[in-house]
């Protein structure tokens, strides 16, 4: 995916003591020098833990880890470690905590919020060498996997038993389970099947302080606080998952995919509303507008119905008789809403043809625009029509094209804001439109992120959705896991350094601490 241009950081590394820290004071430089020294001193100890070949110090090799899927944010990591066991992960984190050195977890690096953005003064902990499917247990409908296992590899391992792993983010061929856990990944089918958090029975985690802790297992509803639920989606700020026991779901008897073409988005939206109102719960409901359809046609010749101003894809799965009944219902409702063509596919190859255009949309947009920004806002589904109208108005007023591709069933928008990065000021104008779209989502009671996560990208937007008290509570929770503040710092929650003076965010000590009635450590 092409984003905003990557800033050139080629001459920045801890070796030459320069960082991206904007503060240029002598004090700041001394601090940075100190941090770089501390990091250098750590290298032999990291090699002692992960072995010589498990630690990357070479600049060129470190640079290959400088960003995740959101390439606009890039930093060359101070050092990269590639542990092979849970114990090694825990030891590395314990060392970081003891030495006050920040660490950043990384799975396959497919994230879209710069959650795996490295630190020049820190350790990047990559789980790519922990790729073993430890066990498939069809009798207990679960599998035990290491964090570096690719999402789709769980389904591949479970398929011979008639099972699959339900969360299916679009990057599922490469994205890692550990990354899915950190981001609480969903996927096109989360409308029916939920997110990663609904599919994890057990975890082993390495805490930021270097402890290995088991939570849950093959039995559901483990006693005590739901630490699994709280850990999933914590974006690497509470530690690193070193093993996961995930639920396997029985492969559905039948899957039917419908494609309905409408002349305009309003009609498509009406069809979605009536499907929901009739009590049908599809596995997935996706929608594309004219601009994204045109891009997909140009890129992959998906052969969607000509003249479509909106294309709706509805996928149904389950027992064959139920799927047939629901498909007939969806067909009727689409016709009533004005669909001028409906295609239906139940075979894998035909279904793939319907999905081809939708799945290519992001990449395809790169063909019609030199650069683009993807947003990930969510609105209540009933507000979709109004918000799409507002986005069209924003686009018309600013002269910036916006292609709309979205998960219509759950109101998760992925507007693609198109611009030419060679044109001076275009990137800023696009960012403005993109920000205005997020404001729309918040105004309608939605969310700033449905699936990409907060990371660095949206940390400064958190105060638009949460009160200072909400954020302070989240920080209190975070510090229960990471009192040293070394776990993926400056991600997920806003900080003054990243966001300037965050309006209203309390920076002084907890009131109970100030009163001398409590300690915080």
């Amino acid at each position: 995916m092409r984003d905003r241009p990557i800033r050139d950081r080629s001459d920045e590394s801890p070796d030459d003591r320069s960082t991206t820290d904007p503060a240029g004071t002598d004090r700041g430089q001394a601090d940075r020098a100190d941090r770089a020294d501390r990091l250098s001193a750590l290298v032999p100890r990291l090699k002692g833990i992960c072995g010589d070949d498990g630690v990357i110090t070479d600049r060129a090799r470190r640079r290959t880890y400088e960003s995740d899927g959101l390439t606009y944010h890039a930093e060359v990591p101070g050092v990269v470690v590639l542990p092979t066991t849970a114990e090694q992960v825990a030891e590395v984190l314990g060392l970081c905590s003891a030495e006050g050195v920040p660490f950043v977890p990384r799975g396959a690096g497919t994230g879209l919020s710069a959650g795996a953005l490295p630190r020049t003064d820190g350790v990047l902990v990559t789980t790519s060498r922990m790729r073993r499917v430890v066990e498939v247990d069809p009798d207990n409908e679960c599998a035990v996997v290491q964090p570096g296992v690719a999402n789709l590899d769980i389904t591949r391992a479970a398929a011979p038993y008639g099972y699959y792993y339900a969360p299916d983010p679009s990057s599922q061929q490469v994205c890692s389970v550990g990354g899915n856990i950190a981001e609480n990944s969903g996927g096109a089918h989360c409308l029916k099947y939920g997110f990663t958090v609904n599919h994890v029975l057990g975890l082993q985690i390495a805490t930021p302080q270097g402890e290995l802790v088991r939570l849950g297992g093959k039995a559901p509803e483990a006693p005590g606080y739901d630490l699994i639920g709280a850990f999933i989606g914590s974006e690497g700020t509470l530690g690193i998952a070193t093993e996961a026991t995930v639920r396997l779901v029985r492969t559905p008897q039948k899957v039917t995919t419908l494609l309905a073409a409408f002349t305009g988005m309003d009609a498509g939206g009406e069809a979605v509303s009536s499907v929901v109102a009739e009590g049908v719960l599809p596995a997935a409901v996706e929608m594309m507008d004219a601009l994204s359809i045109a891009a997909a046609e140009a890129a992959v010749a998906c052969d969607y119905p000509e003249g479509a101003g909106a294309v709706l894809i509805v996928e149904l799965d389950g027992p064959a008789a139920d799927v047939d009944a629901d498909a007939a219902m969806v067909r009727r409702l689409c016709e009533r809403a004005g669909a001028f063509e409906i295609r239906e596919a139940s075979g894998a190859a035909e279904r793939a043809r319907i999905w081809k255009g939708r799945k290519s949309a992001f990449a395809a947009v790169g063909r019609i625009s030199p650069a683009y920004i993807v947003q990930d806002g969510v609105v209540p589904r009933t507000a979709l029509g109004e918000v799409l109208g507002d986005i069209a108005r924003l686009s018309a007023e600013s002269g910036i094209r916006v292609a709309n591709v979205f998960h219509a069933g759950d109101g998760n928008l992925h507007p693609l804001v198109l611009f030419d990065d060679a044109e001076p000021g275009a990137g800023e104008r696009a960012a403005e439109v993109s920000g205005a779209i997020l404001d729309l989502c918040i105004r309608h009671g939605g969310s700033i992120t449905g699936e990409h996560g907060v990371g660095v990208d949206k940390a400064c937007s958190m105060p638009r959705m949460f009160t200072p008290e909400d954020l302070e509570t989240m920080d209190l929770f975070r510090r229960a896991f990471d009192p040293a503040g070394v776990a993926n710092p400056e991600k997920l929650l806003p900080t003054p350094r990243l966001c300037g003076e965050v309006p209203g965010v309390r920076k002084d000590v907890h009131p109970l601490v100030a009163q001398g009635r409590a300690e915080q450590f």
Partner: protein
Amino acid sequence: MTGEDHQDLAAGQAAGPADTDRADGAAGPLAASGVPVRPGTDRDAVGGAVPRWVAAPADTKGCAAVAAAASREGLALVPRGAGTKTGWGAPPRRCDAVVDLSALNHVDHAAGDLVVEAGAGTPMKDLADVLGTSGQRLPVDPVVPGSTVGGVVATGLSGPGRMLYGPVRDLILGMTVVRADGVVSNSGGRVVKNVAGYDLGKLHTGALGTLGIITSVTFRLRPVPPAARVVSARADDPARARELVASVLRSHTAPTAIEADRPDGGAVTVHVLLEGPEEGIRARAEEVSALLPGSSVAEDLPDGWGALPGGPGDTLLKLTTPPARLPAVLDAVADAAPDTGPLPVRGSAGSGVLYGALPSATAPASAVRAVASLRARVEAVTGGHGSLTVLDAPPTVHGAGLDPWGTVLGLPLMRSIKQNLDPDGVLSPGRFAGGI
């Protein structure tokens, strides 16, 4: 929970409510909150402890004012909905005031979005009635009659539908909670898809009010399915019951729930609930029926669907197991108290959650021993994956040294969370695992 833990935590509170005896009027130090406060009575007792006051805020703000006033005085608070599960967990070490949330009774239903926000004090039944008018429901079974939204969430109490819809925590989108210091804090949101910030609602679900006072919860909803069937069959023993359950799990019939009921240590009744479009329901019921020899098919749920075993005064057990270990766990429960005969046990056989009941007639010391030995056996037969917790027990059984929790993984992290969110330990102190 060890005695040592108890002492450690108790010592930390030695400087607690120093002068709550001073004359502050009937409302005591909580008068400052501006919320109606009355003196506590025997009927307000929590785990045997009669609170000095009962505060009844009208909304989140009032609840925050109560917590702030209590926090200033170091008073221990225990939140309460309808009071149907007040005895759950260990008895709190202190209960200076009960926060009665029954006035936080409101329902904000966004039918088109399949979302509802409800006040913690809203009776689940009222919520179901409102949702039903739009053909929707919160797929959480009414396990304990009379429960409120806040009570179900704070106890994390799920029923048979947990198999398809997930436990109650899976249905929660957002939550508003009053912190120990009276600060109002929100997490999650009102949309079905949202990964912004920590999902703290998960943490409060099942926390028995030890991390905050839940005042409002937002849930995702489901349409009421057009048709339902229950296929029921008898299995002579637990091994056979598991075979039946496994055969349904391996089928393509997508059941909503698979329940097992063994009232007397003998035969096991297996119930399979199917829900979905009218057009498909018959074929699915026939397919399940063919897998369960001698089965019958009904359109209505059997009596006592999802209800907990036992009666008042019994010691209520919750057991979890990997589903394939069901027979060993069923047998272990039946044998748990040889003196009193086989225990009744029932629950979600397809997911691996069972409930058992030790009769009230069991001598407290015997009950404590029975729990300990059953726990050891459950852990052994499940390879350490299973657990036994005591949800509810009479004060006499607690008094005889009951450990309601057993092994709780991640306890040090739980303590650390409690320390950060409730540093003075004033929210339902001692009610949770490890004396938290």
